[in-house]
């Protein structure tokens, strides 16, 4: 039996054993572990990106993890969504993922939300967390998450994957990091956007990007991040597979994060699906409108 917290009043003796391999790292230490324990992260989307991200956040000891997903596990998910299992088909992904990460680490708090993220609930649902991970699969939610992260002043660790390719970026990082709208002020037309369902996805690609999202979140929380916003591009079938891009700073004219501050009611007043060019058949199916 664990005798309880030691004199630092934070970690249990067993935690030194559990987290010892990372606590002995240069620049991490007991301090880093305590930061993780006191921190919270919310993963929006428990799919191809969210599953690996959740695994490594939980294993590293992030004290409070939120999981937001309104979908249910399907057989077609299991090719890449590695926290879910055949037995969980038909169950909400948020519950399935929560159960899986609790098996890894019972010492962390896990909150599940099966509501659909919307302009009316995004601020309140995301407010309790230090870091937001965008593991979603559609453009409207990506804009909503960016606007919400800006309003709440939180970093948004954004991952995306399609076919053989992946992209990773931290938006709204520090005082000068751009938001998603700074880079992409206008959304693409719906016909320009493919989904994993339509265009396909190699499972390990989501794994690598989701894993990188957990890593970036851990770096942000522990202070290991250098504070520069870069875009990481990955292509599983190109050589070299990775490319790091220097990004523009926050744009003064950005309606979300620019110098004039966010436009009033930019979140509550935006119909993100319409903003992104209207409904697509699969968004309908997914209940996004």
């Amino acid at each position: 039996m664990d005798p309880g917290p030691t004199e630092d009043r934070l970690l249990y003796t067993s935690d030194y054993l559990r987290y010892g391999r990372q606590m002995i790292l240069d620049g991490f230490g007991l301090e880093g572990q305590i930061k993780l324990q006191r921190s919270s992260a919310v993963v929006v989307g428990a799919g191809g990106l969210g599953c690996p991200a959740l695994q490594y956040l939980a294993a590293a000891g992030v004290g409070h993890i939120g999981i937001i997903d309104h979908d249910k596990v399907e057989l077609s998910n299991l090719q890449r969504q590695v926290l879910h299992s055949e037995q969980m088909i038909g169950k909400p992904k948020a519950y399935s993922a929560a159960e899986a990460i609790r098996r890894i680490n019972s010492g962390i708090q896990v909150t599940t939300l099966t509501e659909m993220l919307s302009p009316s609930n995004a601020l309140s649902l995301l407010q309790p967390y230090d870091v937001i991970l965008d593991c979603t699969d559609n453009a409207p939610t990506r804009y909503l998450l960016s606007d919400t992260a800006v309003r709440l002043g939180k970093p948004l660790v954004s991952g995306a994957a399609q076919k053989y390719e992946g992209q990773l970026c931290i938006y709204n990082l520090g005082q000068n990091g751009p938001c998603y709208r700074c880079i992409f002020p206008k959304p693409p037309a719906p016909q320009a956007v493919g989904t994993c369902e339509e265009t396909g996805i190699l499972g390990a690609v989501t794994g690598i990007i989701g894993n990188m999202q957990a890593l970036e979140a851990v770096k942000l929380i522990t202070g290991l991040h250098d504070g520069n916003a870069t875009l990481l591009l990955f292509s599983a079938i190109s050589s070299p597979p990775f490319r790091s891009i220097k990004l523009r700073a926050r744009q003064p004219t950005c309606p979300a994060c620019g110098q004039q501050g966010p436009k009033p009611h930019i979140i509550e007043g935006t119909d993100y699906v319409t903003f992104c060019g209207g409904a697509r058949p699969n968004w309908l199916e997914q209940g996004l409108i």
Partner: protein
Amino acid sequence: MSTITVKVEFGGGLELLFGNKRVHSISLPSFVPADNTIAPSSPPNSETPLLAESDDPPLPANGPIPDPMKGLGEMKAKPLDVQYLMHYLRSRLLTERPELFMDGDTVRPGVLVLINDTDWELEGEGTYEISDGDEIVFISTLHGG
């Protein structure tokens, strides 16, 4: 008239508009029409140097240094820039659905242009003057997960 060779790469699905080929090596003249007019060529979609082949009259053996824009009429010239490159790619290399590459004079929403691994916004966007050996990437933002 000197030639500039630029490595062009497409990603995030844009390669589908360009014959499903990700990496292209493009040679273009160092001075081009300021209004981005693309001279016709044959065969279309070739990746051989443009050098205004079909339009240039034979040069006099002796005489003044030829105007690099000679044969392109009364148009103004400018150094080769990213905007010209985009027009060139659309006219010569693009094989389908041009509206998924450009929107007016710039890339369509959702496409990011990278100049030597730097966001083009930091390099002057379309006005960036291309040097020999530059690498320009056109990448579509992904939404899947």
